[in-house]
């Protein structure tokens, strides 16, 4: 496929992902919903059937998410935890790199991936890129016991929230680089959970919309993780002009 077509296709995939996974029906969203969603809300207030159908649709979406993030117990039992984690990463659309190798194993845009990673049964996973996937807290249990995990990229994951960050304590000895930019559900309370990752050297917390005072949070993060280099773009850190009081 040509390069622009490929990027357009990936862009469609990503936006479809966000439509499936984001919270709907928030009355405080910045832009009022489309005509269709407002009609549905109007009907839902008046008819129990419509409300039931909307609840059912939300439930189906959540069940689909949970199915994707199920614990791969069967694979783990027969092939070992590393292969199970690798399989999970690839089936969600992410990529990873083994220790000692330089090439990445990734799924292509259609979700297909090669099974070559089965040849490396005893290799340990060193870098994981799960950007723009639907990984969530239950899916994190598939990555446990990866004691050599050094890099974790979670850019733009809509289901990564504060509880997920607290669950990252299982990598406290090995994790050196963490990228959680563009994750819409992370707040300052979740960033406090990064205190356990004492070996962290690079952290990217750019473009997090739910942080209310980003300048202060970044300073506190730098104090909390003194050996870590923190990248935080996309925030308006300029000082607001004080309102002049006319006497």
């Amino acid at each position, binding site marked *: 496929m040509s390069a622009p077509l490929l990027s357009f296709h990936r862009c469609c995939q990503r936006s479809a992902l966000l439509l499936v996974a984001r919270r709907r029906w928030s009355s405080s969203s910045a832009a009022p919903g489309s005509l269709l969603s407002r009609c549905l809300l109007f009907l839902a207030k008046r008819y129990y059937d419509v409300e039931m159908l909307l609840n059912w649709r939300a439930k189906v979406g959540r069940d689909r998410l949970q199915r994707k993030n199920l614990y791969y117990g069967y694979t783990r039992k027969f092939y070992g935890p590393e292969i199970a984690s690798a399989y999970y990463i690839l089936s969600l659309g992410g990529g990873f790199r083994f220790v000692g190798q330089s090439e990445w194993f990734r799924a292509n845009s259609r979700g297909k991936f090669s099974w070559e990673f089965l040849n490396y049964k005893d290799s340990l996973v060193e870098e994981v890129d799960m950007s723009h996937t639907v990984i969530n807290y239950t899916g994190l249990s598939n990555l446990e016991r990866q004691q050599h995990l050094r890099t974790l990229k979670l850019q733009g994951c809509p289901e990564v929230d504060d509880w997920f960050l607290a669950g990252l304590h299982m990598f406290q000895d090995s994790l050196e680089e963490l990228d959680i930019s563009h994750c819409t559900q992370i707040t300052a309370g979740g960033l406090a959970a990064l205190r356990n990752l004492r070996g962290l050297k690079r952290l990217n917390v750019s473009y997090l919309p739910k942080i209310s005072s980003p300048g202060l949070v970044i300073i506190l993060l730098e104090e*909390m993780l003194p050996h870590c280099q923190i990248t935080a773009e996309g925030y308006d850190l300029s000082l607001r002009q004080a309102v002049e009081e006319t006497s």
Partner: protein
Amino acid sequence: MRQKAMDALPGSSWTPFEINPNLPPETADIVIVGGGVVGWSIAYWLKQKEKLSKGMRVLVVERDPTYSQASTVLSAGGIRQQFSLLENIHLSLASADFMRNINEHLSVVNEDPVDLQFNQSGYLFLASEEVAHIMEQNYNTQRMSGAKVSLLSQHQLKEKFPWINTEGVVLASYGLENEGWFDPWTLLNAFRRKAISLGVIQCFGEVTSGSLTLCLIVCVSQVQMPNSMEYQPVECAIVVNAAGAFSGRLAETLGIGLGPKDSLAGIPVPVEPRKRYVYVVHCPDGPGLDTPFLIDYSGVYFRREGLGGNYICGISPEEAEEPDTSNLDVDHQFFEDKVWPKLANRVPAFEKLKVTSAWAGFYDYNTFDQNGIIGLHPLINNMYFATGFSGHGLQHSPAVGRAVAELILDGEFQTLDLKGFSFRRILAQEPMLERNIV
């Protein structure tokens, strides 16, 4: 004459009687006395588990519409798994699971998603030489139950938290996950909003008496309207006492505990309010974002509040020095005498601080063994209790609500076995004490 006729005919809004829209219904299936987080959690789970939509009428009666004395909103809002009793650990784990998936449980169509403002900061318990063995035993129990806790030696503690004065500390227990603090008012409102959307009726009034028939069943509760002489008798099948600090008083008005001393009827519900002070202090040089909820072996505790260098602290007073519970006034001398010295000893940066605010709240203190009472009363066949949590009601509320709903609807506990918290231990005088280090 014509005007009178026009008024009297249907279609006009004139009526000879003033109808008070705030009265509760005359009949209800389940009346939950107490509109705190435990009461609303029970109401939500009852409606969640009912098989037929609108199959039963649940009424939640709350005395104070402003919640000015309710323990829920005055709480420090922490949740931890570091207990010694298995039941408490499981309750906390289940409640943390609930809060993690809170939008799956409590989201309402067309309303904002619930944001608990949960700070994932963990609890840190410090143990001296005498109590270190208790801490180690508790740690083993907690790990076996699935709580993510780690033990730190004195040296590791100093490395991790350089602002602590580790003198006298031999062992520390640090929660890695599912521990922290959140906003209790948000949780209460989330439960309330979802329960009302499922059909629970809310009523503001005080339950002043209930009639007990010959076989000791509460069948009519009298609900007194706030600030008025009006009352409404409510016929009900089941009453749940979730009145928190005032559940002992409610039980007394129903006649529990007023019988002959050595009989079942003479055993009162051992829950009474105990006042606890919380002080908000500001210290610009204090510990930063990674401050856990620190609880020292001397009893003093503190946690970070917000990002501006504010902290919340307090201490449990000795048994002999319990403050007066007739009001919620704060004793500021208590801070100077009891809290500040111990706090400054543990964290040297707190020698320079300023108290900006303070409040007091009631614990629903179980004088028997300081753990919750969940279950049916042995004499009254339709009165359930969910009270006496002595400061842990908020953090256990989702799981306790589910347990009481299972008890009422299924007759027995399904997910968590809380038989140890029933009334039986009070009748048999077998306390289930928490082996705390404080």
